[in-house]
């Protein structure tokens, strides 16, 4: 299987090219079969590679397959190569299996859309790019995947391109992540200029031996972090994610929940050597993760749009992963990436089932009482919400989140741990708020369509994973690539552990109190003066959009509009006008009056004579 590693990204890529070439000429069933089938085959290839990898582990812990030499010029060399190790295998497995389930679901969800084939072409392209990202052994090749997923995200957010708002959301996502990506590119350039190669192993070895405690390591880590913040929608580059929900729901599930937004987590884990060299950058990672967690959790609590609420939730959960990375619990971060991929994809897909059966309704205020009318969506959403809240013992989310909180206490201190605890509480609160608003209470809109088999199977499979995936031994499996957390647990960590297990239950109970039955307290709170202001503030994502609009968007647009006529042209235009004026003046001398000509001649002769005499 080692020799066929290239098949893993190549299969979805082939599917995408095939779909693009065939275009609208093939029936929908065939499009779906090509789109889902190639990703399914890719998942099988990952499975085969995984079995192969685990039955006969390579001695150095990873296996590299070189594809071709991309750039080899002077002192710089970058190759297109794939690398299979515990980390990339975990990532690839999660990506392909989740993507396959989501594509099966999409076959039903996208039915009747005029862009059916285009949808699968873009989705396959995304999967291929994502697999390049996680399997690349070279940072430049990784960047190819990195920009590739960004492109597909843009294409799929703006999938329904007739709506100008969707286009705006798509461009916002692309441009904001590009801002991070540009920093990332500068980081790549810094590494390449220092080591002459972008081979990840060589770069990390070089950094470890030559950059000990140096400012360059911190600079490189900061630049990589900036790229990660953009891609993973972490503060301060987070505001594109809620708008990205303009895309079809399976897109939100795959790209903006399960896989792409975790790319930032992956890149930090992949370059953890760099971050370990710069402790204060690690602290920054943890702080930004914790900040994003709190910002987004409170925003999720007040959203009316079901998908936006889930989007804020995704930001928060990725914030948890950043928190784990920042305190050195690398394994916990990747573990949480995996469980999050399952339960968040599940939440989005069951939300999609709700939305489509209500004829495209997103607003939770117009939902309600759907428990009995959409039992499948209810039970699966409940499983996802339970895992998101990390209800102890029975959900996968519990195991990964507990590991993160444990690491935060040991490696980060009480402050970060406290932020994590508050975040976990609010997470459980808003998760069950969604459950109660959508599925309990008075009946809202009418159900127009029932979930079919193709959508039901992925929902059931993801529910099972969301509840049971916690039993996979991911952390110990990752030990070969990511070092275990070194920090010793502080005194009293047992009590802290019990508290962190209880917090989700408290959150769920609070949600019961606030949102089940009459919502008097909430309505009174939101209705009071300061409460309404706070509600608006949180609902808008803490005003970041407002700020960025004034700081960046408007000045840029103003400059573009002001510069339309090109200021630099002014001197040239001035020169033209000057020439025309002079021309006008000189034209006047050609008056046709003989007297003037004679006077002019006399004057000229006089001047010439004077010049001859005196000079």
């Amino acid at each position: 299987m080692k020799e066929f590693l290239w098949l893993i990204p190549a299969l979805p890529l082939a599917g995408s090219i095939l779909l693009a070439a065939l275009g609208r000429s093939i029936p929908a069933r065939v499009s779906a079969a090509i789109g889902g089938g190639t990703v399914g085959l890719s998942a099988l290839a990952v499975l085969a590679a995984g079995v192969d990898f685990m039955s006969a582990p390579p001695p150095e812990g990873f296996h590299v397959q070189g594809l071709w030499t991309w750039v080899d010029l002077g002192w710089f060399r970058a190759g297109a190569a794939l690398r299979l190790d515990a980390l990339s295998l975990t990532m690839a497995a999660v990506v392909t299996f989740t993507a396959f389930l989501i594509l099966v679901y999409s076959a039903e969800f996208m039915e009747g859309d005029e862009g059916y084939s285009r949808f699968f072409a873009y989705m396959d392209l995304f999967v291929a790019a994502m697999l390049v990202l996680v399997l690349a052994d070279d940072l430049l090749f990784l960047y190819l995947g990195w920009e590739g997923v960004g492109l597909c995200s843009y294409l799929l957010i703006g999938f329904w391109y007739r709506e100008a708002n969707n286009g705006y959301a798509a461009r916002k996502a692309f441009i904001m992540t590009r801002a991070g990506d540009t920093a990332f590119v500068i980081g790549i350039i810094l590494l390449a200029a220092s080591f002459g190669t972008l081979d990840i192993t060589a770069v990390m070895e070089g950094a470890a031996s030559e950059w000990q405690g140096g400012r360059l390591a911190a600079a490189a880590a900061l630049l990589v972090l900036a790229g990660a913040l953009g891609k993973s929608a972490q503060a301060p580059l987070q505001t594109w994610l809620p708008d990205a929900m303009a895309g079809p729901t399976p897109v939100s599930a795959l790209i903006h929940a399960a896989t792409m937004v975790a790319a930032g987590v992956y890149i930090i884990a992949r370059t953890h050597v760099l971050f370990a060299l710069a402790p204060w950058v690690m602290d920054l990672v943890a702080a930004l993760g914790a900040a994003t967690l709190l910002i987004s959790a409170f925003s999720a609590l007040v959203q009316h749009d079901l998908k936006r609420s889930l989007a804020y939730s995704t930001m928060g959960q990725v914030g948890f992963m950043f928190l784990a990375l920042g305190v050195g619990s690398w394994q916990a971060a990747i573990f949480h990436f995996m469980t999050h991929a399952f339960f968040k994809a599940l939440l989005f897909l069951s939300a999609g089932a709700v939305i489509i059966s209500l004829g495209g309704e997103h607003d939770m205020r117009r939902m309600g009482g759907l428990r009995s009318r959409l039992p499948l969506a209810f039970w699966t959403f409940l499983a996802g919400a339970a895992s998101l809240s990390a209800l102890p013992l029975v959900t996968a989310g519990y195991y990964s989140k507990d590991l993160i909180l444990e690491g935060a206490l040991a490696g980060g201190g009480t402050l970060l741990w406290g932020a994590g605890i508050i975040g976990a509480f609010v997470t459980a609160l808003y998760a069950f708020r969604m459950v109660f608003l959508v599925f309990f209470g008075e009946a809202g809109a009418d159900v127009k369509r029932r979930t079919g088999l193709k959508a039901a199977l992925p929902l059931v499979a993801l529910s099972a994973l969301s509840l049971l995936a916690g039993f996979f031994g991911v952390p110990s499996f990752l030990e070969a690539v990511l070092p275990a957390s070194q920090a010793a647990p502080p005194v009293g960590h047992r009590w802290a552990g019990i508290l962190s297990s209880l917090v989700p239950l408290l959150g769920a109970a609070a949600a019961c109190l606030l949102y089940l039955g009459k919502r008097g307290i909430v309505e009174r709170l939101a209705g009071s003066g300061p409460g309404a202001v706070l509600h608006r503030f949180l609902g808008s994502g803490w005003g970041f959009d407002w700020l960025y609009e004034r700081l960046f968007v408007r000045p840029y647009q103003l400059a573009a509009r002001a510069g339309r006529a090109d200021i630099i042209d002014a001197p040239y235009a001035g020169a033209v006008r000057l020439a025309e004026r002079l021309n006008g003046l000189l034209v006047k001398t050609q008056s046709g009056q003989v007297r003037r000509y004679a006077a002019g001649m006399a004057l000229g002769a006089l001047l010439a004579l004077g010049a001859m005499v005196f000079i």
Partner: protein
Amino acid sequence: MILVWAVVIPLLGGLAAWLSGRLGSAFPRWVSLSALALDLVLLLTLLDGGPAGSRWLAEIRIEWIPVIGAGIHLAADGLSLALALLTAFLGMAAVAASWSGIRERTGFFHLCLMSVIAGVMGAFLSLDLLLFYVFWELMLVPMFFMVAVWGREGRYRAALRFFIFTQAGSLLMLASILGLYFVHGTETGRYSFDYADLLGTPMGLATEFWLMLGFLAAFAVKLPAIPFHTWLPEAHSEAPTGGSVVLAGLLLKTGAYGMIRFLFPLFPDAAATIAPVVHVLAVVGIIYGAVLALGQTDLKRLIAYTSISHMGFVLLGIFAWEGLALNGALVLMVCHGASTGALFIIAGAVEERTHTLDIGRMGGFWSSAPKMGGAALFFALASLGLPGLGNFIGEFLVLLGSFRVNAAAAVFAALGLIASAVYSLWIIQKVFHGPAPPEAGIADIGGREAATLASMAAVLLWLGLFPGPFFERTGIGTAASMPTGSEIEREAVTGVAGRIGREKSGRPPGLARHGAGEGPEEMRGRQQGK
């Protein structure tokens, strides 16, 4: 002899096209297309490599005006050949793009087009400064006619501006050529316009500097560099589509070529002196062009401003005068020719169908013309530097190379990557996305347009994914060391040539020697110390 034919064939083809125009308007098109195809095939034979021991893949000297020391000296190395191939290729694209748009005086149009191409080709191949100047002027006049006769409403003004700007630059260059000629003559007693003779002419720094400025004026106007760019948006947007393709794809490249071939090798110290200033101009150009592009309402004008931004990268790459950056600039030149040329062709196709270039009156064309939309998306992505397409390789190498020379300039230039995303996606949004137009929409691209665009896309994909052969056969590194005493130049050129194939360990040689803890700061110091 191939080199002579490479220049003569477009000229003869142009004359034949003109004459055949009397038989019918289809004839000039086919004649021009076949002449350029023949030219392309001829040039491709040079890829096999030149005679052993020579830095030129092909070289020829024919006596011209021996009295004053001017000869017909043509030669091609990797740099010339890459650009000559681009010239023939984009020439064909320009003919194809004018197929249905040019209906009046087709014969004369093709004479003009082919003369421009011959001039560009000659400029890329000549090594005699007087001959170079002749070709440089040969581009100018027919281009003027192309804009002035077949252009849009504002064509006279645009053509005149184009002429005055470039002519002012050219005359300064002529003065410098003559100055160099006499300085060299009085120093050595041998009066010659030949490149090989003039290299390494001994002169004081002040003399060198003023002579260099003359060349810089001509090349900076042509490139164009800020603040000499204002002729470009107008000329591009008023020219017929074929003219825009040739202007953006080829004429701009002659400025960059001149800097690499003549400016740096002839005046190495003066060029190094002014380099920091040019770095600033380049970075300002990158940002300025990108910001102004967003403000435009005319589709062709918008694309024209993106050219200014891209050429800023080329300028930065050249004045970094570092092996990677130079090769990056070359790749970027070729890819900019293909991607921007293609965008102009698409803009032309839209104009033909809707009779407007106002993006405010476009939108939603994706539903009626998905192939055209897909193509536009592809080239817009190339233009924003998506990895996997050639422009990215060019920009990345420029940034990487110049980072070691001037890290601050490279970092600020990288901001252009964000700005390019803004305008590229704006084009797609305004023209192809958005609500469907109330009318029936537009016809999708036909076979001829599809073939043209597909070939340009293939070039971008090839250079984006497998640039290896390009660097091997046509890169600046294959030029071997130039016969000059200049240290800075030798470092840059042999830096690539010498190390290709040897340093496979992937480490910059400096680091291996100098031990641990060394960053680009130190490397930069060393490089400047030389």
